[in-house]
């Protein structure tokens, strides 16, 4: 199916800046959905607020653009009420880890089947470049003009400890790997988290002398390595990419079906 069959042309042109990584995530997502052969009417995209959140409007699925940080809570209500739906929740780093941090860990704990994609550009882009919980120590932002003294979360560690049963990380440079991970995350029966390092040349790159979009993408190539790779062993400081957690545990909606049987004395 051509890409235009998965998007709402009425909604375009999109509002992302030139060089933004989020378009690559959208591209990979559509490839994953096509590869899985999912029916558009069985997909719900629920997003919060921010640059990342706009992705839900561009796709021709059921889509819900909600409140800052609350996307997973809305998505939980949708999924439990209609478990046959594939629920995908794109989030930004501030959206998922700051204002939505509590919803994030509890969705992971419940192991409710949905796919959380954390599009991590290390900055609040839409509001103009303020530091986020994933900006990292020493970075510059419009609210950290003397350098950030906050330490960042490690999304993968947090998701794993909170109970997510599928946890992966990749970058927008690794576009094929990204599509593959999204496909695996959607197929996973449980709560899946995919962190995608996504460049923001406008707000993060400019203030942190990280260069333009090609340079930032290049840094994803040189600055990351697959789990257990030779490259990682030789350069322990590199950010790891790959699937960190992939396990089977009882899924929440299926567990609730058991509750219904029990309550009915079956």
């Amino acid at each position, binding site marked *: 199916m051509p890409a235009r069959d998965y998007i*709402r042309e*009425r*909604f375009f042109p999109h509002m992302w800046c030139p060089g933004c990584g989020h378009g690559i995530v959208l591209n990979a997502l559509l490839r994953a959905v096509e590869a899985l052969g999912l029916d*558009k*009417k*069985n997909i*719900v995209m*629920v997003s919060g607020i921010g640059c990342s959140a706009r992705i*839900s*409007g561009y796709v*021709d*699925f*059921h*889509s*819900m*653009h*909600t*409140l800052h940080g*609350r996307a*997973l*809570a*809305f*998505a*939980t*209500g*949708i999924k*439990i*009420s*209609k478990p*046959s*739906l594939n629920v995908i929740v794109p989030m930004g780093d501030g959206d998922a880890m700051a204002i939505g941090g*509590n*919803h994030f860990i*509890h969705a992971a704990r419940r192991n409710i089947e949905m796919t959380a994609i954390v599009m991590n550009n290390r900055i609040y882009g839409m509001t103009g470049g303020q530091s986020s919980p994933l900006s990292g120590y020493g970075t510059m932002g419009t609210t950290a003009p003397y350098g950030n003294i906050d330490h960042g979360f490690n999304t993968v560690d947090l998701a794993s400890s909170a109970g997510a049963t599928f946890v992966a990380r990749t970058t927008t440079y690794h576009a094929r790997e990204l599509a593959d991970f999204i496909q695996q995350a959607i197929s996973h029966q449980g709560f899946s988290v995919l962190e995608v390092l996504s460049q923001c040349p406008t707000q993060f790159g400019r203030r942190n002398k990280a260069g333009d979009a090609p340079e930032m993408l290049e840094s994803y190539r040189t600055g990351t390595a697959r789990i257990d790779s030779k490259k990682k062993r030789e350069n322990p400081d590199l950010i790891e990419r790959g699937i960190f957690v992939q396990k089977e545990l009882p899924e929440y909606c299926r567990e*609730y079906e058991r*509750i*219904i049987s*029990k*309550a*009915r004395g079956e």
Partner: protein
Amino acid sequence: MSDAVKFIQGNVVCAEAAVYAGVRMFAGYPITPSTEIAEHMSVRLPRVGGKFLQMEDEISSLCAVIGASLTGHKTMTATSGPGFSLMQEALGYAVMTEIPCVIVNVMRGGPSTGLPTHVGQGDVMQARYGAHGDHAIIAVTASNHADIFRMTVEAFNFAETYRTPVILLLDEVIGHLREKIRIPEPGEIPLVGRLRTAVAHGVDYHPYLPREDGRLPMSDFGDVHRYNVTGLYHDMWGFPTEKPEVVYGLIRHLVDKIDHNSEKMTRFRKYHTKDAETLFISYGAAARSALHLVENRRKRGERIGLLELNTLWPFPADIVRETSRNVNFVLVVEMNMGQITREVKLAVENPRKVYLANRVDGELITPTDIQNIVRLIQGRGV
């Protein structure tokens, strides 16, 4: 006693009424004095194939309820003051996106953590104005078990009819009070179901294009029509817009669909008001004491009556004005600093004859408390 007659708590009545109305999803967070509603839902909902979710907080509770409603189910949450404060953000979202749901607030003493186990009626204005931005809201209340049942069902009916969140304001006394109730037979109280679009598959469906009567037929998430829902100002497709004419059209629609139909939502009870010289206006637990006093004084020949309000928002100004036209004075009985008193003063022809009898110490206002105020107004001393 037949099976339909029960001796139960008001909170349980509310939960049973919600099941009667067809609720199939509840999400909530424990908070006194509303918790029994969640507990009862956790027992009842799976038995009817519904879903009960205990969420991580009140914020996510209402968000989950709104999401679930979009899949075509009647949904509800229940809370009290502090939780209701946390829900204001999502309440505004439900108003803006026109997603039906019911929010029960079993009021306790506030502000802040206040008096968790004691009664208050201080959230009346929060129900009206708590969510930011201009909007209209529907809020109903009840003072006895039969009315808790009736108004809970009505709350769901209003939510579906007007595609809006509806607030049910109960209070600690009513929620925890046990009294007899006959559970209505199926069909005894009419139910309003979800109005779904008749637009066929393959034909453009405009989720936010009101019909001539102002109603918007819905399409369930998971059904053939795929559309966008957003808390931003949006056009008939559900797409964000900043066009002034579209923005203006939407806010007028959100306000008008409720304000222009306020008569259809007005629920009240009149007790001995026809020849009354003294009129009480009250609601919730306070109305029980007011009614008790009215019945007692009537036996002594005093021309005294009660207008009990079941609908608080939109405020039934016409009924209040008409009922108070020929009385010597109006005494509003409520357990706050005069939140409905202010509305009554705005509604009546002579606001100087409107007085407040209140109690804000966590105790239920008694008939004696009210009688003392009546004597003061009449210049008879306490």
